[in-house]
């Protein structure tokens, strides 16, 4: 058995200081240690994108990252976007454009789209689809998802945040 390692990081702006096993995935850390179950776990080998979170502002697959690798970092999960009562613009566009059906892929889609919105002023449809291509939706709601993200770009205006 490997010894536990101290882990200090911020998740959705809240500082945590605890001890974890080195093999603990960031996805399991978020879900099991912090009860942030909005991050979904699909394939656990980096294919489906359901577990996507932001680490220091970049979208990453939390199943392909050890919790200890996030030491000193800032993690944003879907819980760090809007709230149930106050959706953020992207979430509002997902609702408006019917961009989710079963909802399993939604948090990963939202986090990838958040990365795209934060780093790009405008995106062509081709770029948008390429940007979202690492996230799988098994309800095949891609058209509506692309529509929602496109609308979020339009709502936000031309400049990157």
């Amino acid at each position: 058995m490997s010894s536990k390692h101290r882990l200090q990081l911020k998740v959705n702006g809240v500082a945590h200081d605890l001890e974890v096993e080195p093999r603990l995935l960031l996805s399991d850390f978020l879900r099991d240690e912090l009860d942030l179950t909005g991050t979904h776990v699909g394939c656990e080998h980096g294919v489906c994108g359901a577990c996507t979170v932001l680490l220091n502002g970049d979208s990453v697959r939390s199943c392909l990252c050890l919790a200890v690798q996030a030491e000193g970092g800032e993690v944003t999960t879907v819980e760090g976007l809007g709230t149930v009562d106050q959706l953020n613009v992207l979430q509002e566009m997902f609702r408006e454009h019917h961009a989710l059906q079963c909802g399993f892929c939604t948090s990963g889609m939202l986090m990838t789209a958040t990365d795209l919105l934060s780093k790009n002023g405008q995106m062509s449809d081709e770029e948008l689809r390429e940007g979202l291509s690492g996230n799988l939706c098994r309800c095949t709601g891609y058209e509506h998802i692309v529509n929602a993200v496109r609308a979020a770009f339009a709502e936000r205006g031309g400049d990157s945040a």
Partner: protein
Amino acid sequence: MKPPAFDYIAATSVEDAVAALVRSEGEGKLIAGGQSLMPMLNFRLADPAVLIDIARIPGLDGVEETDQGLHVGALTRHAALEASPLVAKHFPVLAEAMSHVAHLAIRNRGTIGGSLSHADPAAELPLMAVLLEAVLRIAGPEENRDVPAEEFFIGALTTDLEEEEMVTGVTLPYLPAGSGWGFEEVSRRSGDFALAAAAATLLFEGPVVSEVRVAVTGVDDLPLRISAAEEVLKGEALSEEKIADAVDIVRASVNPNSDAQASADYRRHLIGVLTARVLSAAAARATKGAP
């Protein structure tokens, strides 16, 4: 699946990481971005006793111009390479190839040193290293050494790297001014590993091809430069006949596998098609000399 248990060390310097590799007596594994290693751990295809995290070693990240060429630190992320103005300036072929690497979230995390050390036989970066005659800088317990990419890759997932060594960076010698380039890849879905990919650089002197490089991947155990194809093009005006000769040589030089994605015959056909496309693209982008 979940990874097996292992000890974890966050290395603070290259010397620290190499010393940890020595102490691990072959049971240690380096991790940087982890975008190849983490799936292997999750599947339990890898079972290291100790994981040595090199991601926070200072000074191994970034792209800079040197007299020898463009130096890329081992910890530079794929996304950083894709977006680098220096890469766009000196090696647009590399920026194009990086855009084909997996998906955004993988490129945000995967590192150059990691991809080269992993040496997947269908990955873009090893192909680029071979095409661009990259020199890998390797740190070891006794000495540091420089290894040309063509000698570094030995087979599928197999490199010249010793158990106690690590890649610290790679230098890409500048191409002659006026060089054109081409890159083409076919995969089943966006972001998948290449069924086959080809890349070329080409320089004209007057009407004739004075320098040309052709490299392919996905069609053998390792990325290959096809020097015989280069030879038939060199010193000649570029024509459809010459390109067809080069294509025949490429198809005869590779040894593709059949798998669930594609047959060996299909891959062999495909790499010829892609070779013709990258040569035409490189010629179109090259500065034309006076006739």
